[in-house]
């Protein structure tokens, strides 16, 4: 397989472009996604020029309206990929996402299919303040009827997005604002990644860390540091939060007997709680230490760099927690 290094942004764009070429029912819809602007994070740059404005549909600032539009189009067999620029703005379209997209199939007794992808991005680290730096994935994992993906690498981003586009179920596809410029190997050849299959991004013996999105990279860096200290960390990236590959997580915890769950979202009622709960039930007797989380404290994202740094998860916070846990200090 020919493999190149490309960015997460390029990987996402390739996924969309390939699927648009493969299937003419795939189209993009969202605010400011067409050229010359090409999306505020430039993920869609070039696509309107290549495919035209009928395949890359720009919409006024109407999240409820255009997400509803995407739902309706999906219901009659189109395959919309809608972009909500910041996950924070999903608040403007929650009804269409939660009460319509997620429920129509079930409510209709299985008549409907909703082959919809909602691409959005979250996360801190750019001093974007309270309304532009949330990580709201837990809301969607708590909503039956949705699938939720959160890729951490270019490889995963491309493979998962292609799968998302081909699935007939609605997918919330959550990118990270600080990952777009990260690079990684991506095959030239076509590939897809199934939903519900975690990726053990690093093997280890002493502690399992389940991390999502950008915190996977932080955790891998922390694991390097800890390795030098003689602590061996296994890093599990679920890649899709629902379906969740609980088996891989539980198997890892059974091996390492310790679990730390990491995410950027605020701790209280976050996705990490669900991972802990699953493990507390399914790996009972195998866990030799408290199960702990490394998440943002439950406050909104502050603006100033030093304030944001204070609340944001980072490599050091992860390493500290794992170290203390392994040393029995927690």
């Amino acid at each position: 397989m020919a493999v190149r290094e490309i960015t997460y942004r390029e990987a996402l764009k390739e996924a969309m472009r390939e699927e648009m070429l493969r299937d003419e029912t795939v189209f993009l819809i969202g605010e400011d996604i067409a050229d010359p602007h090409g999306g505020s994070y430039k993920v869609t740059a070039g696509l309107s020029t290549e495919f035209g404005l009928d395949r890359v549909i720009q919409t006024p600032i109407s999240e409820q309206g255009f997400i509803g539009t995407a739902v309706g189009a999906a219901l009659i067999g189109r395959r919309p990929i809608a972009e909500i620029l910041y996950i924070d703005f999903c608040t403007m379209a929650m009804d269409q996402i939660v009460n319509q997209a997620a429920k129509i199939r079930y409510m209709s007794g299985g008549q409907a299919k909703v082959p919809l992808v909602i691409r959005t991005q979250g996360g801190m680290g750019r001093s974007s303040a309270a309304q532009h730096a949330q990580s709201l994935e837990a809301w969607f994992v708590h909503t039956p009827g949705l699938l939720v993906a959160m890729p951490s690498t270019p490889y995963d981003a491309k493979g998962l997005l292609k799968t998302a586009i081909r699935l007939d179920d609605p997918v919330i596809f959550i990118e990270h604002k600080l990952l777009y410029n990260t690079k990684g190997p991506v095959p030239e050849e076509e590939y897809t990644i199934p939903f519900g299959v975690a990726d053990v991004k690093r093997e280890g013996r002493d502690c399992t860390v389940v991390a999502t999105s950008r915190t996977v990279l932080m955790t891998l860096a922390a694991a390097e540091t800890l390795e030098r200290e003689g602590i061996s960390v296994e890093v599990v990236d679920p890649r899709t939060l629902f379906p969740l590959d609980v088996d891989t997580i539980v198997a890892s915890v059974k091996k390492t007997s310790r679990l730390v769950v990491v995410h950027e979202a605020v701790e209280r009622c976050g996705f990490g709680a669900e991972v802990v709960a699953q493990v507390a039930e399914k790996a009972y007797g195998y866990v030799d230490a408290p199960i702990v989380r490394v998440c943002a404290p439950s406050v909104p994202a502050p603006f100033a760099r030093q304030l944001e740094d204070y609340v944001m998860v980072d490599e050091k916070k992860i390493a500290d927690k794992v170290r203390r846990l392994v040393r029995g200090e927690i």
Partner: protein
Amino acid sequence: MNAKNADTTVETPPEDLTREQLLGMYRRMRLIRGFEDTAKERFEAGEIAGFLHLSQGQEAVPVGVCSALGPRDYITSTHRGHGDVIAKGCEVKRMFAELYGRATGYCKGKGGSMHIADFSQGIIGATGIVSGSLPTSVGIGLGIKQRGGDEVVVCFFGDGATAEGGFHEALNLASLWQVPVIFVCQNNLYGLSQPWEKTAYKCDLVARVATYHIPGECVDGMDVIAVHRAARRAVERARSGGGPGFIEAKTYRFLGHYVGDPALYMPAEEREAWRKRDAIVKLRGQLLAWGYLTEAEDEAMGAEVAAELQAGVEYAKASPLAAPETALEELYVHFDYLGNPR
């Protein structure tokens, strides 16, 4: 209500509708009325669970509109959707089956009164969220346009929905994209307990919608022929690429918001006055006057409708209950509810 509709009160039969069409509309209106009456009765007898939002009094609107549609056209509907979906083609027996929670119901017991759908007939389903179907309908319109089809989609909603943001967003997008959506506001003068004039200050809906450059008409919703004609105009325009349309049909909900609502907020005289304008009675009178219907035929039709409803209830009751464990099915296409791949 504007002058366009006056012509339906004249003594000569309309030239633009055949006897068969008119009798079909009449029968469909009676079927809806009978369905609603029967559902109410069965609900009050404790046989049906949940809420029941009935539409007695409004039958002319869905029937007038849907009689202007073809089988491949789409509709979306609301919590008060029985009439809309019957008008588009739902069978009462499978609707009763749904209300009775049977495996033979349109939604296999998962949807109930508020969510009846029949995708095979373009009945995309009803939503219990006021205004929820407006943006979705724009998407159906967009999808039709994308695939170069000549179908149209009718989006039914109530007067109450016009205060929601989704009303504005949907009109704006439909207008920008010129999609084949016909927005039909069934203005029954109430949104739950609130009279229309408390929902929107001195609002002329057609004028408001005109600011989006969407052509609209306000019609007498108690006159099925007037509704039909307005719908036909809008459908023809939309089908031939002329973009979205809007119809406000002034109508009335004879009963409360849901079964059990005493509707103290509806003045008795108002109710009386609207009852006298019953669209079914009006059409019956016209059909008799035009010689399209005899008293005997009318009675026979009544018996036939009653039999259909009766058979529908029996079908429902004789059908197996949806099996409890099916509650966990049909959530995802590719996964079970726990996320295991199929």
